[in-house]
């Protein structure tokens, strides 16, 4: 009984054990890379199954009410697990030899960390999970030990630890104010006695999460790291740990700091606007595809951040009959939109980065130039048709061309923005997504309209499988969004007082 009581957490448990196991086995047997890959893949699938088994579970608390398993956490866990799974599948054709065990172990640890964050309702657990994920990804970012890797890792590390220091300081203030580390208590306290310290706390917390979400100006590390880290790790960072930032922010800011609604409403209005604009602008001139993708994901973070503004604007507003789902609340809709976009963006970005990984892994051999340089993508359609096609779809999806996951997410999110009176933000966002076409089309026209820059590329199995899975997911969500919308709505409900 006691054991089955923790059933909702078996997923994390499984992965933790698996991670440790992987390290041990790796140290015991040599060149077990393949096996490790399969092991972790299997583990992730199993965890996914476990999580999926109770997707829309009633919120249940564990470990002295520090861990809560609810629709929201499950949603994010699915996202994280899917991303990691895709990355692992792709990695199986890259990390086969020595050191693979560490790679997969770190990856699994990172995943566990994210999962913990996604379901922690206590700042301690949240911080621990956060750091677990961060630390393992610091290591991963440097994994190939190339110059670029290390520079990327270094920047990521310094910036990251500063950010987490800020976060920690913020947490300490929160604790001092509330005398408790439970989010609900903090919420109550902040409602009761609210002083300048809380504002500082809020901003410091925002810094901490903003660093993960890569919101301007806390984004500085992102372009360099995404460009420099091993491509598959970039995928994990952009698609996984970034989203971890969002879930943490949702929990802490929307639940614990609801008292400062007006403040973070202001803050995120600015952050969102600046982030999406600056991200898109900076992306226009990049020549490194991964850097382009990095900036694009910064811009996407800007879009997603609109959700906070929506909630701030429409918090607790009377439910109204927007959309076709009976009476619902704009703030709930906003979060749901954000979740959809998070899901979609996670998939699209993973796919895109896996694509770059494939290209880089082949190009780097013959050309000593930057393997991710856009010139290497010339004529990719001929050299690697499958990759090129998937990239094409991902690009259009990122640009929000229907019918893709990107379109649906933006649609719901912007709808909520318009509906809660933030028309200016919606318009800005739409103009931005028009601007974003500049660089997406640039990549596309390199892949499809330019002459081939080299011989045919051998598309390894792992990459291809991962790509195609992602592609199917992206299109599926775009064409049959119904179920996902409802799911997102349920997940969103968790964050809001019923």
């Amino acid at each position, binding site marked *: 009984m006691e054991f089955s009581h923790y059933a909702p957490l078996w997923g994390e448990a499984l992965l933790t054990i698996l991670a440790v196991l992987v390290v041990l086995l790796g140290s015991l047997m040599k060149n077990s890379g393949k096996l490790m890959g399969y092991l972790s893949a299997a583990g992730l699938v199993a965890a996914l199954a476990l999580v999926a088994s109770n997707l829309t579970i009633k919120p249940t608390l564990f470990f002295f009410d520090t861990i809560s398993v609810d629709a929201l956490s499950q949603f994010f866990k699915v996202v994280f697990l899917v991303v990691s799974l895709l990355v692992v599948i792709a990695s199986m054709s890259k990390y086969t030899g020595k050191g693979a065990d560490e790679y997969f172990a770190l990856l699994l640890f990172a995943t566990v960390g994210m999962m913990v964050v996604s379901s922690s309702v206590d700042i301690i657990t949240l911080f621990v999970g956060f750091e677990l994920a961060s630390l393992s990804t610091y290591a991963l970012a440097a994994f190939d030990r190339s110059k670029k890797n290390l520079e990327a890792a270094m*920047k990521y590390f310094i910036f990251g630890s500063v950010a987490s220091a800020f976060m920690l300081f913020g947490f300490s203030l929160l604790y001092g104010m509330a005398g408790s580390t439970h989010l609900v208590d903090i919420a109550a306290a902040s409602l009761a006695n609210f002083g300048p310290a809380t504002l500082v706390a809020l901003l410091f917390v*925002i810094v901490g999460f903003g660093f993960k979400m890569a919101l301007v100006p806390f984004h500085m590390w992102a372009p360099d790291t995404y460009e420099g880290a091993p491509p598959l790790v970039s995928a994990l960072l952009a698609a996984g740990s970034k989203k971890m930032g969002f879930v943490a922010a949702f929990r802490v800011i929307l639940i614990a700091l609801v008292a400062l609604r*007006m403040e973070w409403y202001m803050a995120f209005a600015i952050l969102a606007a600046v982030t999406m604009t600056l991200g898109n602008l*900076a992306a226009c001139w990049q020549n490194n595809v991964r850097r382009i993708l990095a900036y694009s994901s910064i811009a996407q973070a800007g879009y997603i951040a609109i959700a906070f503004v929506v909630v701030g604007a429409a918090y607790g507003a009377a439910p109204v009959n927007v959309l076709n789902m009976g009476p619902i609340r704009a703030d709930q809709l906003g979060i749901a939109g954000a979740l959809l976009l998070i899901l979609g963006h996670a998939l699209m970005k993973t796919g895109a980065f896996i694509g770059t990984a494939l290209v880089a892994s082949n190009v780097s051999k013959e050309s000593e130039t930057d393997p991710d340089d856009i010139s290497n993508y010339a004529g990719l359609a001929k050299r690697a048709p499958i990759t090129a096609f998937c990239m094409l779809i991902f690009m259009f999806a990122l640009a929000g061309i229907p019918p893709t996951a990107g379109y649906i997410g933006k649609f719901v999110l912007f709808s909520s923005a318009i509906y809660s009176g933030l028309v200016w933000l919606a318009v800005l966002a739409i103009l931005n997504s028009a601007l974003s076409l500049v660089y997406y089309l640039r990549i596309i026209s390199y892949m499809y309209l330019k002459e081939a820059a080299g011989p045919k590329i051998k598309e390894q199995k792992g990459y291809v499988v991962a790509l195609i899975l992602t592609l199917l997911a992206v299109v599926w969500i775009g064409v049959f969004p119904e179920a996902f919308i409802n799911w997102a709505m349920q997940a969103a409900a968790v964050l809001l007082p019923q």
Partner: protein
Amino acid sequence: MYADYAYLIVALPVLAFLLCLFVGWHLPRGGGFLTVLATFAGLILSLGIFSEIYPDKIIHQSMPWFANFNVGILIDPLALVMLLMVTFVVTLIHIYANGYMNGDPGAARYFAEAALFTASMLGLIFADNLLQLFIFWELVGLCSYLLIGFWYRKPSAAAAAKKAFLTTRVGDVLFLAGIILLYNNLANLNLALKPGEYLLQFPVIYANLAQIAPDQLTLIALGLLGGAVGKSGQFPLHVWLPDAMEGPTTVSAMIHAATMVTAGVYLVARMFPLFYAAPYGLTAVIAVGAFTALFAATMGLTSFDIKRVLAFSTVSQLGFMMAGLGSGAAVGTLAVGVAIFHLIGHSFFKALLFLGAGSIIHAVNTNDLREMGGVGKYMKWTMYTMLIGSLSLAGFPYFTGFFSKDEVILIAYEYGALINMLPYIFLVLAAVLTAIYTFRMWFSVFTGKERSNYAKHESPWIMLGPLVILAVFAFGFGLAAQDDFYKYLDSNFEHYDLDFVELGVIGGHALEGEHGAPAVEGEQGAAAAEAGHGAAAEGEASEGEAGGEEGPGEPWYIQILPIFIALGGILIAGLFYWDRVKKFDPSQVTGDKDPIRKLLLKGYYQHEIMTGWFAETVVYGTALICNTIDIKLVDGWLNWLSALVLGFAQHVRKVQTGIVQNYVTALVLGVVVLVVVITLAKEVGLV
């Protein structure tokens, strides 16, 4: 029973067109015989119809087309005589063409286009509604374009074709505007149309003219007149007609003398009630006509290209016809009869002259009068047939032209007597010049000694035959047909439900003229005058004062004046150009320095004005300006915007210095900024 097959009159030439176009290449002489047969069948049919409906029936068939328009056949006296004339003349010309175009590689194309032209001209004539008329009108224009540009390898030909199309197009625009106006005016009346009736049908138009506001009527009339001016080469849209001589001579004969150019006149005649009802409608017509008659004649004097001389003469004669119609303001429907009579007579002798010219050019291989001379020695038949044509054109007594043209002058006098003398004076002068330039041409071609050595032979019979036949008509038609013709055409508008008195009141004709004679009275007067002229015709022998007493319309000297005009003109021409009696040399009378001569030689600088200034400077200049605007402004602001954004982006990305400490600084700065903004916002009470 012929009436049921009326549509074949158009259908057969169309068939011929298709056959020539697709299989003509394999047929002897490009399948010219097909075209001839088709047209000839048309002639037979028209004769049959004539026998059926003469003197007092009309044919009207109609079927719905699209929206609220219809296609239909309306054969009333006006249409019928035109049908007969066109089928007859064009048949002859096609026969002639079989000889003339023999051996030309493009013969098939020629006959295809000729057949299409025939079809559209006939369709234009018996259209029962204005839209259909306009459609065939445009097709006629197309054929003219194709035929003028027949020798498309010649740049001049291609250019002339384009010029013709565009110039007439200007007229067509006005025509179209007129139609649109008319349609909308009729539509606003909310007429209760019986089934089978459509707004643009002529009977419907006639019947409802009286209900349309006069000023609208005038606008419509001017629009239609514009079309007529374009098609009939009236001033100022006549510029294309002389250039149109780039086409084969048969084309010139068929299109630019006998038939197509008369379409404008036909249009005005067809819409005569409207012009009559429209205040100043007929005034405009007669003004244009009279002026053009004189204006073109002056240019005919100086041209050295035989075909151009004839072309200018055509323009001038069309002016006569217009003036005749315009005189309707004074003489009512009689004007239609007179004008159409001149039209038909003219088509005979002008076709004759052109074909003659063609046969000369065929032999001599030049258009230039200065290189001819003495041709008569070798081309007897051509010479005499053309003599008949010239006499007729000059209005020598008892020739067709004498009756037709002078009748026009007489009713112009009627008009003058009632309203304004100016047109009459213009026409008289024009008539003198006509006689002069005609015989200038005739003398300098046939008499004297060769001024260059050219092939000396007569043309084949297939070409001479038509000449002879036409010559017969050019001589006899007037004498034979005149009186019945007037009666028949006078009856034309009796078939429709319209009342000229009422229209005259709208048109204000009742008020014009010193003795306030209403239009009807003008009509009687004209009839009387016409009778009087009949007297004058034989009064030729028994001096004209007899006519003077009989015709209350005009005094005897007016009636006999035309005779002296003709004789005098011929005499003057002889004095200058007939070597036997040659007394003066034109170059002595007016040296090349003479500005007037220069002006005439240059054709009043129309080319410079129309093409050089208007088309190339104004229109093309506007286009270029638009182009600049488009590039610099309409597209420019876009490029400017994108440049701006991307330029800004260039600066934005420089923020990323790559040095981690700066990143941290940025982070902290961000926090500071947020603090400041939020606190400020709270101060201002924004949140």
